[in-house]
């Protein structure tokens, strides 16, 4: 192995990569875009229904009700209640009439007023009506002969819900890897179309060195950016070493796919045409993280599932090596197979 030749070839590839304006611009703008998207998304989740309450009388069921997911804040006046609703501090304002207790005691129905802003959806209004009705049942001591036994499946995230932007993190990391996949595929197909790859092979460089250099270029471009992205968005808080390993394997995976794409592509347009289906297919598992339950178990046949699942579990749930070693092993297997197939078909075309 001639390291000097490898170094020269890698430097040449980096230079060629950034000479293609589209990929250079996509790399730079895309990276900034991903960072911006991450930071403009909500960083917290309000998992409570905030309800304002004006109660001139004391109704323990209403004033002392602080269930999980329900935040009832008492205000001094009806005006303050309306102001709170208009300002968006409360999803609804509940105003109890002064004669509530007397009416309830005499089996009459007091009329409770609920205030909403115009943009509150009907289902939310219905929900608040149901909540208030249930509180009234509790206040009047009407028992219910139901006994519910609850079982929590998976880690209970009450109090520490995952913000949407952290769910998006694996998707963005994968997208960064994918753009580099297209860049490398284009680099290779251009070299083949122009015949420079054949010119390289008449030099003392071997085919093996050629593929190692291309592999290092592709993996380096993809891996470097994804690591930087995860660093900037705080994706290493869970287990940095595991995520770095996963991203490295992900970078090798997309390099393998890039070899495959370049083996069937003739020009930039065909690289784009082949890359987009690969892009979409490899991106699908990320949507499983974004929209839990939307995708069934078939997703596990896609190699990117093991990358996305690892990043999601480690970054968002603090999983360790013991939890995700199998994911990494399967991902490594996919990497080896895809890269080997990619190199084989590409080598045939080069020869």
């Amino acid at each position, binding site marked *: 192995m001639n390291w000097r030749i490898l170094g020269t070839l890698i430097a040449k590839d980096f230079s060629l990569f950034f000479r293609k304006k589209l990929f250079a611009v996509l790399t730079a703008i895309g990276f900034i875009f991903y960072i911006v*998207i991450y930071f*403009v*998304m*909500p960083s917290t989740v309000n*998992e*409570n*229904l905030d309800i304002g309450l004006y109660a001139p009388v004391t109704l323990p069921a209403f004033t002392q009700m602080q269930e*999980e*997911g329900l935040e009832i804040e008492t205000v001094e006046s009806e005006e303050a209640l309306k102001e709170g*609703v*208009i300002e968006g501090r409360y999803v609804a304002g509940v105003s109890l009439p002064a004669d509530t207790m007397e009416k309830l005691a005499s089996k009459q129905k*007091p*009329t*409770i*007023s*609920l*205030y*909403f*802003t*115009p*943009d509150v959806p009907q*289902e939310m209004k*219905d*929900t608040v009506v*149901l*909540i208030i*009705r*249930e509180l*009234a*049942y509790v*206040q009047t001591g009407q028992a*219910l*002969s*139901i*006994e*519910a*036994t*609850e*079982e*929590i*499946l*998976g*880690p*209970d*995230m*009450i*109090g520490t*819900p*995952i913000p*949407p932007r952290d*769910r*998006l993190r694996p998707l963005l990391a994968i997208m960064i890897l994918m753009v580099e996949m297209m860049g490398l595929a284009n680099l290779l197909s251009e070299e083949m179309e122009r015949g420079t790859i054949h010119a390289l092979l008449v030099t003392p460089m071997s085919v093996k060195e050629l593929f190692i250099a291309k592999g290092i270029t592709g993996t380096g471009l993809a891996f470097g950016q994804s690591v930087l992205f995860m660093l900037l968005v705080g994706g290493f808080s869970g287990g940095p070493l595991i995520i770095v390993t996963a991203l490295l394997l992900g970078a090798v995976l997309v390099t393998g796919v890039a070899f495959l794409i370049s083996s069937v592509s003739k020009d930039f347009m*065909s690289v*784009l*045409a082949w890359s*987009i289906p690969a892009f979409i297919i490899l991106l699908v598992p990320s949507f499983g993280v*974004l929209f*839990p*339950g939307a995708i*069934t178990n078939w997703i596990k046949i896609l190699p990117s599932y093991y990358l996305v699942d690892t990043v999601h579990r480690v970054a968002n749930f603090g999983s360790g090596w013991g939890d995700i070693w199998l994911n990494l092993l399967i991902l490594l297997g996919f990497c080896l197979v895809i890269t080997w197939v990619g190199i084989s078909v590409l080598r045939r075309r080069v020869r």
Partner: protein
Amino acid sequence: MSLKRVGILLGKEFLHGSKGYIFIFSIVAPIVISLMVSLIFGTLFTGKPEMGVLDESSSQLIPMLQELDTLDIKEYGSTTEIRQAVESGAVDVGIVLPADFDRSLTGSGKVEIKAYTWGESLAKNRTIIAVTVTTLIREMTGQESPVDIQTITLGDEVSIPWGDRLLPVIVLIAVFLGGLMLPATSIINEKAKKTLDALVVTPTRIVDIFAAKGLAGLIISMFMGILILVINQAFGNHPLLLILVLALGGIMAVELGMILGILLKDFTSLFTVWKTAGIILFAPVFIYLFPEIPAWVGRIFPTYYIIQPIVEISQLGSGWPEIAVNFFVLIGLNVILLVIVAFMLRKTQLLTT
């Protein structure tokens, strides 16, 4: 005009055009923009709580739950299925109703319900589900609500969330990227490569070529418009009427694309026109972004007559009476543009022959 030749040329447009930047861009860009808007304004993650039910007794509770708008209900056939659904997050909570549930409610003993809760489910979703089920069970057992409730909406103005306000922009981008840019770039490309001249020396007429390019643009334009409305669940109560409006919008985009394609010589000029004159196309969306702007300002711009019916049908639940006038204005504008295109085509035909 030969339909057979138009068909062959249309196939060619899709076969070769689909590898072009503009084709890919006109499909990918509206979807990405739509997803980004949903992500940024948080509408993508604010769905209703979802509840799974395993009903072993054909309980009355199920139809009652389905009638309500506060929850999304999914039914499962076995404990394994419902557990899997909860574990994967397909539902927030899954409840198992025992075999004699309805009968047991009227009895004296306690009725047991097994509930599976997804660990990542938000607290408010768990509360909403619990309260909804409890209230319905109370209704089933004949308990009467001890209170009357009146809902009062504060403020007169109808407030439209930003995510919804941006929908007309995305729909217009979807319709015009495909509808305008595809035929325009395709015509310019043919002119640049001189393939248009080569084609017209065959029995193919210039009308056939332009019809094929226009149809390709119209199909992509309508497809993307419909897709964006599906993604945003904004089909309103009159989907057919909406599709008709999208078709007319697509026709306007295609006609403008053809005019630009005939007039301009290269892509640089086209993109310059798109960047500068694009404001005329997208100006009416500012009326929806900022309702303080007087509505009459929008009527100056041709695309207002596409956006207004779309917003009326998809967001305000309106029907034919509310959009009829603008619908006919849109048809009128399309006819005028068609006459211009026909005139320009005739000139082009004379030039090429």
